């Protein structure tokens, strides 16, 4: 009797599996992965274009003054055709400001572009630093947490951020103050050995969060860096 029931149920299982398009799901998965990579590459291009535009605007804003300063330095007296120029010291100040602006924009945009590039590359290449950090955190973390007792760390692709220990009401605080957060407590039991018991997903970055004082799965819908997210979470911690 049991054997026949087993056979029937296995048959039913086979029929059920035949009705599920696992191949189609896999194809869709690959397409989503390709789309994410293309979107990341587009962001890098647009950031680069935006940075170039800002730099060009910065240069354009100082260029007439710059040309006039060169003429003033190289010629003994201004010619009649030359338009009236502001004082050289003022022009140097404007050039210096422009240079500072240009450098600041370039540096800021370089770091933005670099961060976006790292995010895109991280999808393809193993994130060795993140793995090494996570491995080190897991190896050094006692069951109760890491970093001096129960301190929580967010281990994102762009660095390790300590945020403290979630206090009571942490879940509600996030829901009240940060639109788009989904906080789902999940059971501590059944979590694979060595894995963190809280998983934090931040936009395109997935962070693994080691703690001994709570179990939450948090998904951020809005765009933000891991550092910004860590700052938000710190206010909800002890």
């Amino acid at each position, binding site marked *: 009797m049991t054997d026949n029931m087993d056979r029937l149920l296995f048959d*039913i299982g086979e029929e059920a599996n035949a009705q599920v398009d696992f191949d189609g799901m896999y194809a869709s998965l690959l397409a989503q992965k390709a789309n994410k990579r293309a979107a990341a590459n587009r962001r890098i291009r647009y950031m680069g274009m935006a940075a170039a535009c800002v730099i060009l605007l910065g240069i354009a804003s100082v260029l007439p003054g710059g040309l006039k300063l060169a003429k003033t330095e190289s010629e003994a007296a201004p010619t009649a055709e030359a338009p009236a120029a502001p004082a050289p010291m003022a022009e140097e100040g404007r050039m210096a400001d422009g240079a500072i602006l240009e450098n600041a924009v370039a540096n800021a945009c370089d770091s933005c572009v670099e961060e976006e590039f790292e995010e895109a590359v991280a999808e393809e290449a193993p994130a060795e630093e993140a793995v090494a950090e996570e491995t080190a955190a897991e190896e050094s973390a006692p069951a109760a947490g890491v970093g001096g007792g129960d301190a929580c760390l967010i281990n994102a692709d762009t660095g390790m951020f300590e945020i403290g220990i979630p206090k009571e009401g942490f879940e509600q605080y996030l829901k009240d103050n940060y639109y788009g957060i989904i906080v789902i407590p999940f059971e501590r039991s059944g979590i694979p*050995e060595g894995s963190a018991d809280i998983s934090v997903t931040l936009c395109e970055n997935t962070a693994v969060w080691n703690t001994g004082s709570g179990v939450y799965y948090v998904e951020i819908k809005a765009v933000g860096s891991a550092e910004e997210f860590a700052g938000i979470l710190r206010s909800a911690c002890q």
Partner: protein
Amino acid sequence: MPQRDLESIYTAHSQMIYWTAYSLLRSDSDAKDVTQNVFLRAIKHMGKLADMEDGRLKAWLYRVAVNLALDIKRKQKREYPVDELPEQESTALYDMPEPSVITAEQRRMVREAIERLPDIYREAVMLHYYSNMSCADIAQLTGAAEGTVKSRISRARIRLMELLKEGEKND
């Protein structure tokens, strides 16, 4: 990330993930969404997962699937039966026929009955009969004792046999 790694992981574990999600949500579209999202997360962590021992990898995938399914369940606020199946003190002997003589209608009844089982029984049945996992593997995955898994499958099987018997009487 070599596509081959994703493919091998998908081939080995997609059934388990899908039926885990389905057992909680009882919806093909929701189960597919969960399956997709599990593997999208796996892609992000592929550097770590590729070297992970099989048991840990499976447990990681299972846990993510359960969490995502619970996420959907909470958002939908569906009510699901949480009762236990009564333990059968004596197995009423039912002359279970060969599967080949079971009609399509009876098979449909059994499938529907599986879907109406309480969560923990449905999960055990689907992981065992739909995903071809052993009771020991299911126990390791879910954190339950192997004996508990076997008991759940046994009770579910008896319940399904009763349904088949009732169905024959009504014919």
